[in-house]
């Protein structure tokens, strides 16, 4: 099926609109759907990530040879089941794994969170303040001044405590 909009690319996005109770079906390509603001991003499974990665790799032959000396996991085996065999695989599988991680993690490559021995705690009072401020903004926006006044008082109380 060809995209109804551009009549060039294959239609991969199929929509059913309800306009005044009437059903209307439309078939678009990804590009035309995107220009209409329709996103088709789906939850990608690790296998899809791995497969698409392997397809684009020139050195497939090289990948086949990678195997962890500690746990015996090969890169191909990892590719098939999606699970690593031991902590060392993260080093042994090197660049190919780094690319898999980057795809699975929306481009992220490095950990920036807590390290062993650290403890990150949230301050509930700070959180409560943020929540009240957000509610206050919303109340002002919809011109609910009674609610806004109440929220303002609660914020003041929180600051005093």
């Amino acid at each position, binding site marked *: 099926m060809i995209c109804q909009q551009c009549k060039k690319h294959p239609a991969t996005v199929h929509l059913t609109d309800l306009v005044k109770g009437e059903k209307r079906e439309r078939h678009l390509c990804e590009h035309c759907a995107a220009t209409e603001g329709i996103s088709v991003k789906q939850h990608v499974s*690790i296998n899809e990530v791995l497969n698409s990665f392997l397809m684009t790799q020139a050195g497939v032959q090289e990948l086949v040879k990678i195997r962890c000396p500690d746990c015996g996991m090969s890169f191909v085996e990892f590719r098939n089941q999606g699970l690593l065999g031991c902590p060392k695989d993260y080093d042994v599988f090197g660049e190919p794994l780094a690319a898999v991680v980057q795809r699975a*993690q929306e481009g992220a490559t*490095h950990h920036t969170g807590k390290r062993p021995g650290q403890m*990150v705690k949230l301050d509930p009072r700070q959180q409560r303040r943020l929540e009240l401020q957000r509610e206050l903004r919303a109340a002002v926006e919809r011109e609910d001044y009674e609610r806004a006044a109440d929220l303002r008082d609660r914020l003041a109380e929180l600051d005093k405590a």
Partner: protein
Amino acid sequence: MNLDQLVHECGEWLKAGGPMSDVVISSRVRLARNLAGHNFLSKASPDERAEIERTLFDAIRSREFGKSTFYVDVEQSDPIDRQFLVERHLISRQHAEGEGCRGVAISSGETMALMINEEDHLRIQVLRRGLNLDDAWNQTAEVDAALEAAVEFAWHRQYGYLTACPTNVGTGLRVSVMLHLPALKLTNEIEKVLRAARDMRLAIRGLYGEGTEALGDFFQVSNQVTLGAGEEEILNGFKSEVIPAMVNYEREARRQLRTQSPTALDDKVWRALGVLENARAIGSEEALFLLSHLRMGILMERVKTVDLAAVSELLLGTQSAHLQKRLGRRLEGPERSVLRADYIRKRLDQGRPGDN
């Protein structure tokens, strides 16, 4: 404490109430951890699995928080008990159906469950009712730190905490909330909202997590990215932007139903109550679907003769393993449907506000 005693209780986090509980049923924080110096489970021999279980079990018992937990050996458990734990969200389906030695340490009040030998060596999970991720996170952080003083977790300079699957690497942090979105479903706006959530890099799942369908308008929303953002950043984005936005959409849809189609709304709600009060045989999915409508009706003050606590209890109690454990025997499908309907009628009959 043991499983048979839990049957007659409603987990602390499943009780009605908590912040934004008109839409948010519960909040969950989960950390994935693995012991350094051991293979991940896909390459662990039965002996190594047993050693990992023992090491983690001892570490938990040696800590202050561990003294009030009880341990369930999932490998040795009866299938109904395993299903029972899944229904209470104390273990995952994968853990119930897995193989080899594995277990779960459950805190009193069921606000925390530590799964041993699921996909990773350890999964720390903390649950709260309503939207309460701060509290859930703070308890998680304490337990994580306490365990780090007893065992060494696999760690990497670049990747942070190492996990069996690269989708969990880094913080190992998965934050999720269970949302009840019946009005968005009725106004046909649910797809739009879920699509927007997916655009914000969130995963949407059903009542029992990975690979399950959304049943009875209950949706589990969670973050997908675990690397490249700090724990605080992940939590804050979730609870100050994403969830309040979704809660507001649902509240807006309820307002719209109330003002624009009150008769259609009442019809749905009262039909649900009518069937629940009168059915003589009912399946678990139909019960869940009707209880969802009834919950909405109570929260929107259309139905004032049923207590919200009764609905919360029924949402859990009508599920198959719960029903079988309460009656103390295995029940086949048709008999189960009859006894489920009996249980619902009795519970609704006692569930009048002011009775308890």
